[in-house]
Every structure is written in C-alpha cells, then in structure tokens.
C-alpha cells in the first residue's frame, strides 16, 4: 500500500502540487491524469524522491520514504519515463540488468531475469540481449525501458508518460502488454498521462489533477459517470461519454436468452464492441459465446437503454 499524505511542492511562488492525499492499493494500476503543467510529474517524482516535497510525506507499506537514502529508495522503486532513457552505451541485457546489478544479484540470476523479462515482452532473448538501444525500434526501446524498471521486482513501479512518444497503434499494444504483465506479476503501478483515454483504459483507479490539486480519485466508471468537476467532465469529453462507459461494460452483463444472426462475440468483449458490430453489419442483436458455446444474445436496444441510463 502506498500512502500519499498531504504532499505539497512549492517552487518560488508557484504551487506545483497542492496538498495531495491519496492511497494506492497493492497490485493495482493507478493512473494520474491531467493537462500539461497540472503537477503530475512533480507528484510522481516526489514518490521516489527525485524531488523533495515542501511538506507532506509518502509511506510505502507503512514505512516513510524519508527513512531510506534516496538512491537506495530508488533501487526499490521502478522508474520508466517518456523517451525511455536507456543507456545508449550499454546492451539491452545490461540496461535491463542495471538495478539487479546495483543490488548485488549474482550474474546467473541477472541473466535469467533479463531473459525472462525479454520473453515476457515478446522479444526473443537470443536476438535482443546483446543489441544496443540504437538498434531497436521505438516500441522495443520503450519495452526495454519498462523491463528495466521491473527487473528487480520493485514494490512499486512509477511511469511518467511511458507511451507518450509512441504512435497510436504501437501505443495501444504497449498498453495491452502492460496490463497483461501487471496482472501476471501483480505489480503496483502508478502511471502519469495527459490522455484520459489511456487513463480509463489502463487504470483500476484514476486520479485527476488540475492546477496541482487532486480533483477526483475514483474508478474509471465513476469518473465517466459522475465527473466531480466541470474540468473532469471536460477531460472525459461529453460527446464520447456514453461510448466510453460502454467500453467498460462486458457483454456478460447484458446477455439475454434468444437467437441472433451472424458471428458470435466473446462474453468478455465490451458493449462498445457489440455496438460497433451491430452498426457495421446492420444487425439488431449479436450472439454471445463463452468457452466456444453460444450463451445468448445482446440486443441493440439493450445497449442503447444501458447508455441512456447515464446520459
């Protein structure tokens, strides 16, 4: 558990982070979202003490971060940033193994961990281990950056706009990868972005910041359905609100008995996907399947009714 307690950072006469208090549960992804200059980066950098708070405190599993020397604290907290920040003069293996090496792991253990992470990120260890960062694509560099941050199995992983430099298709894949790997490893992640779409897609919890203040801290569904301030509503975007909401609800919630034409969709797919399928193929309902067997259908009317519930 990460407890951020009344954290404030003042630069001269500007308050970058203004009395932020929040608690992050172990094993979840928390996304901090806000416009540029809202204090997201400063908040994140105070957690691993790249920036010292003006006042307030951070506790990780009950222990104040002030109890450890900053560079030792940082070895326990993964850190991945926009533009990856890989060491250009070190191979992929040395980059990923940097923190385990600092922590004094044995060579064999480091090598095994590097290969494990490369495989986890769908990069063939034998092919990538001894390359230099300049010999990788942008997406691969980013994955190595995240792998480096995860290498020592840190208590917490901080990510500052990690996908900011990637083009949209590669970014979507990187987000899916992160989600999958986080579930697999049970990591605790705090991720900063200015993109509400990314926040909703990735976050178990979403923290919205505006002018240094934490204006709403809630689940993605709540953020969409009940934005706490006009600013949050604006970030979510009024037009797309119903669609965003539908993208969070699986078909299994609305499945009903009955027949439908055409290709079946998995029960885990979102209502948004089903809506798209209905519109695209001119159907009024789609069959739903689970483990290969059809379990019913979801109708266009039901999706519409559900969307109107929150309009």
């Amino acid at each position, binding site marked *: 558990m990460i407890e951020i307690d009344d954290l404030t950072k003042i630069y001269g006469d500007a308050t970058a982070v203004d009395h932020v208090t929040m608690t992050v549960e172990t094993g979840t992804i928390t996304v901090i979202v806000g416009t540029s200059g809202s204090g997201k980066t400063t908040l994140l950098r105070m957690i691993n003490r790249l920036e010292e708070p003006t006042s307030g405190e951070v506790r990780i599993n009950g222990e104040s971060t002030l109890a450890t020397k900053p560079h030792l604290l940082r070895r326990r907290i993964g*850190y991945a940033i926009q533009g990856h*920040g890989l060491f250009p003069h070190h191979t992929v293996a040395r980059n990923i193994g940097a923190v385990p090496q600092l922590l004094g792991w044995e060579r064999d253990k480091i090598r095994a961990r590097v290969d494990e992470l490369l495989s986890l990120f769908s990069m063939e260890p034998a092919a990538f281990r001894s390359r230099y960062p300049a010999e990788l694509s942008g997406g691969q560099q980013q994955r190595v950056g995240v792998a480096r*941050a995860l290498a020592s199995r840190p208590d917490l992983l901080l990510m500052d706009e990690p996908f900011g430099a990637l083009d949209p298709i590669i970014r979507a894949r990187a987000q899916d990868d992160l989600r999958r790997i986080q579930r697999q490893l049970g990591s605790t992640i705090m991720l900063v972005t200015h993109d509400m779409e990314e926040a909703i897609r990735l976050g178990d919890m979403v923290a919205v910041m505006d002018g240094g203040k934490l204006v709403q801290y809630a689940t993605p569904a709540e953020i969409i359905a009940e934005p706490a301030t006009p600013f949050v509503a604006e970030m979510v975007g009024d037009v797309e609100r119903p669609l965003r909401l539908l993208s969070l609800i699986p078909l299994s919630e609305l499945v009903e008995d009955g027949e439908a034409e055409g290709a079946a969709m998995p029960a885990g797919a979102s209502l948004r996907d089903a809506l798209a399928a209905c519109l695209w193929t001119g159907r009024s309902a789609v069959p739903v399947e689970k483990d290969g067997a059809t379990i019913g259908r979801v109708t266009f009317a039901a999706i519409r009714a559900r969307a109107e519930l929150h309009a």
Partner: protein
Amino acid sequence: MKVGTILRPALVLLLLALVLRPEWFAPVFAPLAPQGAPVIYERSSLLSLSLSHLGLVAAATAAATLIAVALAIFVTRPAGAAFRPLSRTITNMGQTFPPVAVLALAVPVLGFGAGPTLVALFLYGLLPIFENTVTALTTLPPATMEAARGIGLNRWQRLLRVELPLALLVMLTGIRLSVVIALGTATIGSTVAARTLGEVIIAGLLTNNTAFVLQGGLIVGLFAVLIYDALVQLEAWLARRTGTS
C-alpha cells in the same frame, strides 16, 4: 575508405624510411642543400629525436588530459559550477599566450632542456580537452540522466558508468586536437635545447640548408597526419562498438 587503405600504409612506410634510412633520400634532397653542405642530418639519430619528440608530446598530453578532465568534471558538478567562467578564462589564457613567450618565461625557472617545452605543450593542450569535456558533460541526453538518477545510481556511479563513457567520444576529439597542436609546437622546443625534431629544422634554418628544413618538416608532418588519422579511426571504432555514434 579505398584511398585510405592504400595511402595509409604508403605513408607509414615513407615515414619509417625517412626516420630509419634517411640516406636513401640523399638524391632527392641533394638539389636543396647548399654547395658542399651535408644533405642528410647526421648530428644525432633521427630515430632518437623522433622518440624524444613523441615522448614529450605524449607526456604533455597525458598531463593535460588528466588536469583538463578533472577540471571539467569539477566545474560540471553543482559544487563547482561557480568556477566554470574562471576556469574557462584560465585555460583560454593558456592558448592566447604565444608558445615562444612561455618558453622564454619558463627557462629561468626550469632551465634549458625538456622542462619549458613540457610546460608550453601542457598549457596548449588544456583548452581543447577542457572545452570538449565540459561541452560533452553538459549536453548529455536528459532522459538518460533522469533515468540514471531514477533507477538509483549515486553520484559516483552516474559519473563513472554513464557520464564519462557517454562523454568519451567528444573528449577524445579534444585530445586529438591537443596532440596535433603539440606535435607541431614541440619543434620550437629545440630553441631551448629540448631534444625534438625541431633540431633538424632549426639546424637547416641556421645554415640555410633547405634540405634539413624539408626533412624535419616532412617527418613532423607525417607523424601529425598519421596520429590524427589513427585517433579518428579509434573514435569511429568506439562509436560503433558502443552504439553512441
């Protein structure tokens, strides 16, 4: 590339011949020597003069590198940043001072011989190495430096594992400039009795013997060109090897 593969060994062979078998070149230089004067410099062996010349350059450049890099590291730390303008001024002065003046001032203190020449070469070598190292250390990729702090490297580890290796190429360029300047400047050391290839040139100037001047000049020039080229190759190899090109 193609030109280099032929030209480089040819120049090496020419240089070796000029230093080890100067008598071979007597027919070439003969028209340049005054009537009855010797064509080939024989007062001391060209090999020992070359080695002493190169030794002076190497010692001065090594000392200049050590001091310039240490100074550059110091002024790029937060604690030393205030000294950056001052250290720039001092190393710049080292350059604007004419080498002859350095020799003249150093002789009364250090006496005749290698000492004053070493001082002059050292002072001349400082600036390019210092400037290049400061530039390299202040223009490191910001994301890499942020990550280096972020993953928990302390100051020393950042300096030794990230900053200096990444600055190495630009630093080497500075060292290369220093070496070439020193190779040429060392020749005037002979005016204060340092043993350098300048001895041959000065002997030629004093006796109006153009053959000596050409002989000495050619050897110094070839050393400069070949060492410059070798350092360029070294830099290119390092850049490839470390993916920092």
